Structure formats: structure tokens, C-alpha cells
């Protein structure tokens, strides 16, 4: 068992301003504090090499649980072992074996060429130089970023940057990859390329991946297993087809719109 969560709970304090005419003023002196349960006792297991989709409405607790699993947040209670370690207790050892991609955040240095960022990551993760060269050329060839390596990050387009983020997350050969909305804001061609790449990495190296997204085509293309979370509870854990049988039994045919648009872009030589 690579990831094991048992009854993980986490709540946050939320400060609310009193309502009414004088609320603004009163709020400066006394605040109403309410506790919001982001995670209300989540338990699941993920095996090595699985590619799991993690879905749920906004504010359901997806990001919070990813943060707990990547050692950033300490939960209020519950057990969690990942690769045999407790993430928040052995943070440094733990994070040297995982990779993270947050679609809305960047881990690259904004003002310097991409390659410089990779060099720093090489030293931070203590990747042996030979392996680093090998891995970098392999990743940049598959993702098509060789031509971008000397460009400052601030001048990359979103799609180019996301591909570089993926390289950055995978340079140190993590056994586990957390992807938090990796395809957010990407065009159809980039999305398809990204999905193919993730599938290949998973097949070739058996990297376990946990994918958080709102794009159901991502899930459909990549994941055999989905977990649905809502109000901090795990609501469904199983095959995607199981969800379809339950909630959309009459759907017989659908158009893969991403593939359609990508074909159009390619046809018009826009991609």
C-alpha cells in the first residue's frame, strides 16, 4: 500500500464580520469565529502505480487533502502513511520522493531562464549529474520544451509553462505525483499532449498519480478509478463507469470535444 489514509480530519477557523450597519466597526474589535470542517474523517488506500482521479465541487476539501498528503498541512487527527512515512512528521524525507504540480501556482523562478530553475532543483534534490542530464533530455524531448530552456519563465505562454512545470516536478524521479488541476486554462492541443504524457510516465515508470481536476475529460482519459469528495467526506470510490451507470444510464454516445477542437487546430496549423 503506497498511500494509506485513516480518518483524517482537518478544520479551519473562519473569521466572520458581524452583519448590520455597524458591522464593519464592531468587526474590528470582536470577530465571530466559526470552525469549518474541511475534512471530516477521510479514509482511502492507493496502490503503487495507480492513476486516481480526485473530484468534487469547489470547497469540498480536495486541495486540503492533497496538502495533507504532501506534508504541507498537519491534520487535526487521523493517520496517514505514504511510502511508509508520515508526511508532516518526516517532511523533508517525504517530499524528496514526491512531485507536485499545482496548476495555479508556479515552482519555477519567474525572472530567469527555465534551465536555471532546473539546475537549482537538481541541487535541491541532490540529483546525480549524469542522471539529471539523462532525465532532463528525456523529459524535454517528450514534452517538446527543448527550445524553451533558455527563455525566462515570465515570457512563456501558459501551456509552455505547464509543460516546464511537469519537467520540474518529475526531474528527481518521484514515486508519487500529485497533480492539482494541471490542465486548467490549457488549450485542447496542450491538454491532449499533457494527458498522453502523464499516461506514458505512469506506464513506463509506474509513478502513482493522484489527479485533482474539474475537467472530466481528464479523468475519462486517464483514470480507471475515481474518488468523489464532498463536504469533507468520501462519497464514491470506484470505477468511473460505475458513476455513469448510476447517474447517466441513458447516455449512449458523446463527442470528444477536446479531440475535435485539437483536430481543428492541427488542421488549421494553429497547434
Amino acid at each position, binding site marked *: 500500500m503506497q498511500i494509506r489514509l485513516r480518518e483524517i480530519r482537518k478544520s479551519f477557523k473562519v473569521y466572520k464580520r458581524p452583519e448590520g450597519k455597524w458591522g464593519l466597526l464592531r468587526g474590528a474589535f470582536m470577530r465571530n469565529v466559526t470552525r469549518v470542517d474541511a475534512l471530516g474523517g477521510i479514509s482511502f488506500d492507493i496502490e503503487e502505480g495507480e492513476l486516481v482521479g480526485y473530484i468534487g465541487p469547489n470547497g469540498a476539501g480536495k486541495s486540503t487533502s492533497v496538502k495533507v498528503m504532501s506534508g504541507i498541512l498537519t491534520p487535526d487527527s487521523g493517520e496517514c502513511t505514504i511510502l511508509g512515512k508520515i508526511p508532516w512528521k518526516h517532511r523533508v524525507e517525504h517530499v524528496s520522493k514526491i512531485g507536485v504540480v499545482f496548476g495555479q501556482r508556479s515552482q519555477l523562478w519567474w525572472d530567469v531562464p527555465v534551465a536555471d530553475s532546473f539546475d537549482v532543483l537538481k*541541487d535541491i534534490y541532490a540529483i546525480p549529474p549524469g542522471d539529471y542530464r539523462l532525465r532532463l533530455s528525456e523529459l524535454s524531448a517528450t514534452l517538446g520544451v527543448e527550445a524553451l530552456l533558455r527563455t525566462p519563465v515570465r515570457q512563456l505562454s501558459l501551456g509552455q509553462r505547464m509543460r516546464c512545470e511537469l519537467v520540474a516536478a518529475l526531474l528527481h524521479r518521484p514515486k508519487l505525483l500529485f497533480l492539482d488541476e494541471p490542465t486548467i486554462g490549457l488549450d485542447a492541443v496542450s491538454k491532449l499532449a499533457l494527458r498522453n504524457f502523464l499516461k506514458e510516465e505512469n506506464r513506463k515508470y509506474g509513478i502513482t498519480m493522484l489527479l485533482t481536476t474539474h475537467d472530466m475529460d481528464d479523468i475519462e482519459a486517464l483514470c480507471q478509478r475515481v474518488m468523489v469528495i464532498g463536504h469533507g467526506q468520501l462519497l464514491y470510490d470506484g470505477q468511473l463507469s460505475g458513476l455513469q451507470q448510476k447517474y447517466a444510464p441513458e447516455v449512449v454516445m458523446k463527442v470528444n470535444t477536446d479531440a475535435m477542437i485539437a483536430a481543428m487546430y492541427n488542421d488549421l496549423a494553429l497547434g
Partner: protein
Amino acid sequence: MNFRNTWRACSSLFRIRMAEGLQYRVSAISGTMVGVFWALIECVLFTVFYTYSENGSWNNNGLSLPQAISYVWLAQGLFVLQSMNIDSEIMSKINNGDVGIELCRPMNLYTHWFVKSSAGKLGTSWIRGLATVLAGLLMPAGYALGGPASLPALFYFLLSAVMAFVLCSAFAMLVTAIRLNITWGDGPTYMLLLLSGILSGTYLPLRLWPDFMQTFLYLQPFGGFADIPLQLYIGSVAPAAALPGIGLQLLWSLIFIAAGRMIMKRRLHSIIVQGG
């Protein structure tokens, strides 16, 4: 992670941050102009006070006018080591939740940020510091930065200036650790930084403060930012007294580092990573 790897990672981070800082050349030029402007105003003020004080009493305060003027120029040069605010990259990471990404690095967060913020400061400001000192050397005689009191004085000044860099960085990190408590806002950090600036002697040489405060001023940590190296240079502190002074800087650096690490460790247990 062993020591060698940490060292490599640190020097790598230091390099990239310096490279980033060096892109802002215009800021170095404008910074130099501000520094020179301030130094000139202070030179004029001191000249007036020394010349027209009652019975020339200012001349018996332990600091001669040329010494005071040298002090002013070097203080402006060393001023770049002090933080006026928390490193902007780190601050934005605290505010928007990118601290999460930093925590996904196999490195102690304190070490990571210590290197980042000290390199960030040095990257943008070593040109400014040197240019200000150079401008001081080129001023007309009455307002010029004089030479060091002696060769050992110069040597101890340089040593002490390096320690001042460490001390300033350690203090900046302590303030950053306090600032990790995001709901406190900027108030406490600005108060701490302003207090440290005043007590460092940058605005008024510590020797010119009231006599009864001198023992306190010598022992308090912020003199190590500027006053200790500067007094060594102008010779109002003899080279023989250099090592205790530098030892004091070292001691305070260690205290700041220990306190910063402790606070940061505690904060990280209860940290809230902002945003989704």
C-alpha cells in the same frame, strides 16, 4: 540530507537569486542617489552642529567631525544590508499560499529562506553599497569619506561588515518567522525593523547618544548592523577592542537564528496555506 548536499543546494539558490537581483540595475542607480543625498544632508548637519555648538562642546563627544562624516558615508554604504521590509518574494509566498510549494522541497524551510533572502538582499544592493561608498570617497575634502584609522582597523572593519551581513540576515529571518502568522498583518514587522534601524546607528551615530545609554547601546544587538564595523573603521573603537565587538555580533546572530528557527518550526505546525 547531508551537509554537502545542503551546501550545494544553498549555493545554487544563492546564485539564482543573485542573478535575479542583478537584473534590476535601475534600482541600484536610484538607490545610490538616495544614499548619496542622505549622506550629504547629514554631512551638512554635522558640520553645522560641530562648528556652531556652544563652546565647541560637540568636539569633545568622542567623535571628531571628520570621523562623523566618514561614519555617515559608510553607514549609507552598509545600510543596504538592513531590511526595510521582508523579502518581497517570501512575503508574496506567505500571502498567496505559495509557501506550500516551498514546503514541498526537501530542505529545511528556515535554511532555504535564509539563503534566499540574504542573496536577494545582496543581489540588488551590493552595487548600490559600493557606489555610495565610492561617491563618498570622491567628495570634496570637507565632506569626503576619510581613509581607515589604520590597516588593522580596515581589516577588522571588513571582518565585522561580513558579520553584520550575517546578523542582518538572521534578524530579517526572525522577523519573517514572526510574519508567518499571517493574520497579524505588517504592523509588528515594521515596528521591529524601524527599531532595529534606529538602534543600529544608521540615523545618528550611537556615540552621539546620551552617555548613560552607552553600555546599553553597546550590548544591544542592533549596533552590530552598522555601528560596530563603522567605529572600527574610523578608529573610535581601537582594533584591540575589535574581537569582543565581533564576538558580540556572532553571539546575537546565533541567538536570532535559534529564535527564528524555533518560531518557524512552531508556526509550521499550525500553518494555514492560503488559497485553494
